[in-house]
């Protein structure tokens, strides 16, 4: 995993609640391998007409939002299916951070494991950020994972928290499997205790 420390990027507003992972990554593309085509799968049915033409009215198709690195979304972003492919699609589109009031549980976890930073902030703050970046397209936001601070266009700072273990992994670009494998003796001991108790 690529380490995540700090990010300053153009932010795109997506003023929709309950954006489910079926919308982010339609099921029919999931049989395909994770390759360069993923860039078109993200929000596919909202970005493209059935004939395959780009829909200019969809916000993520409009410059400069089509090059955004941060998505400022609505509440319950990423609810529904556990498909990690939704995270792969957002990464392929160029996003490294999603800001929302709340996230689907599994999506939140999948994001952390793939270097897509999910930032939870209060509803009023998220609404303000959405308005600010919509009013002045091209506006950048800054996220500092070490300090756990998001800096808004007006210079105001907003603290957020990422679970400690996941944050360490993100900052160092480590994946959990490697770390857990160092606990092999604890896992074996647990299995032995269980076998004896049975």
């Amino acid at each position, binding site marked *: 995993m690529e380490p995540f420390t700090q990010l300053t990027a153009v932010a795109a507003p997506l003023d929709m609640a309950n954006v489910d992972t079926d919308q982010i990554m339609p099921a029919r593309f999931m049989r395909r391998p994770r390759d360069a085509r993923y860039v078109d799968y993200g929000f596919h049915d909202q970005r493209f007409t*059935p004939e395959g033409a780009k829909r200019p009215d969809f916000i993520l198709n409009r410059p400069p939002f089509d090059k955004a690195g941060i998505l400022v979304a609505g509440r319950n972003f990423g609810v529904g299916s556990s498909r*990690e492919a939704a995270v792969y699609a957002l990464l392929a589109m160029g996003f490294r951070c999603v800001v929302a009031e709340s996230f689907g549980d599994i999506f939140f976890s999948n994001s952390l494991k793939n270097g897509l930073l999910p930032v939870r902030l209060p509803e009023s703050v998220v609404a303000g950020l959405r308005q600010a970046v919509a009013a002045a397209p091209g506006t950048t936001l800054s996220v500092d994972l070490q300090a756990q601070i998001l800096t808004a266009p007006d210079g105001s700072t907003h603290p957020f928290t990422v679970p400690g273990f996941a944050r360490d992994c993100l900052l160092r670009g480590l994946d959990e499997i490697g770390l857990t494998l160092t606990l092999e003796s604890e896992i074996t001991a647990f299995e032995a205790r269980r076998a004896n108790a049975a």
Partner: protein
Amino acid sequence: MGQTLFQKIWDAHVVQARDDGLALLYVDRHYFHEGSFHAFNMLKARGLAVRRPDLTFGFGDHYAPTVGRSTPEVKDPEIRGIIETFEENARANRIRAFELADPDQGIVHVAGPEQGLTLPGMTVVCGDSHTSTHGALGALAFGIGASEVAHVLATQTIWQSPPKQIRCSFDGELPAGSTSKDMALALIAHIGTGGGLGGAIEFAGTAVRALSVEARLTLCNMAIEAGARTGMVAPDAVTAAWLAGRPYAPAQRDPAWDRLFSDPDARFDSEVTLDAANIRPMATWGTSPEEAVPLSGRVPRAEEAPDEARQKAWARSLDYMGLRGGEAMADVALDRVFLGSCTNARIEDLRDAAAVLRGRRIAVPMLVSPGSSRVKRAAEAEGLDRIFKEAGARWEESSCALCVSMHGETVGEGERCASTSNRNFAGRQGRGARTHLVSPASAAASAVAGRLVSAL
């Protein structure tokens, strides 16, 4: 202070606890399906082996066709490739997989419990959000993503932060004609799809105790649609009787199951109580499971939404669903009906639907896909297949089918489908497809009427 059912199972599985509350939990049962190929690729890329193939079971369900049980005969090359990869991964890692041609194949959340593979007190994970289903047997069961699937394959453990403890009680008696699907939709309409976010829901109360295991599986299946990580029901005599004699269940009931309940003085972070007597047959009208009303009611208008955010969401949902708002649910005309999925395709579900269809003809096309190949055989032994076929429905093989539409068939653009599945998301059953979630009995009644109605 006493402990909740959740805490008892959690504590019994902690391999290592960190100061920040995060725990490394041991996984008793790990299920996977064809979509889990990303995780096997991650394992391969790192040169890691599956640590406990004996605790890992595969089920071919997401891409299983509803016609035919032979992998080489699957027509679509991409779908066939996915199924072949699933079967190869299982073989290469010496994992028991219930493949397409296996007489015990089925949807993982139907066939796993049916095999007796999920037992009270277990930790159960699967790379599928509806893993919460297995909590109905008194297990701690939750869905995970591909990276976590790889982690469990390699280590047989998973890192978890403790969720909020939520108790959802259904008091009183469920009226005749209402089902646990209606309980689930009523709950989600009440607390919202974010109502259970970050939480573990224990379903309790007299109406839950009165449910069969199959009805409890439906209820826990839908816990994820309330945003919860898992749903669970404390095991009881009903659970033990249901498990007895299943292939992988122990010959004798385990006395440890008797301790699996929330102590009277256990503390929950939040409680929600519904009166089961008020629950009527429900259906969704929008594109979120929380957008549900009784079938006897009408579609709400956007301006009736309780707040501005939902006003926007409701307007978008109505537009997508091709509804104005204000019309009676019973006036909403259907194009087709789907009876199937891990939510509602067990034998009791098929019986419910068949009871409505007996001696009648359907007005719109209906697909019936049993939850497992065993359920299919059981239904045929009872003659349910004849009832479905005589009514005019397609009686086909077990698959996730039109719940997720990965198997090669979709609901067409603009088509309206009453479905016993779990998600009415935009595009879920196919691009532009319009889904109304209902119970099996309501699905059957709606197929006969060609409109959204209950069997009452």
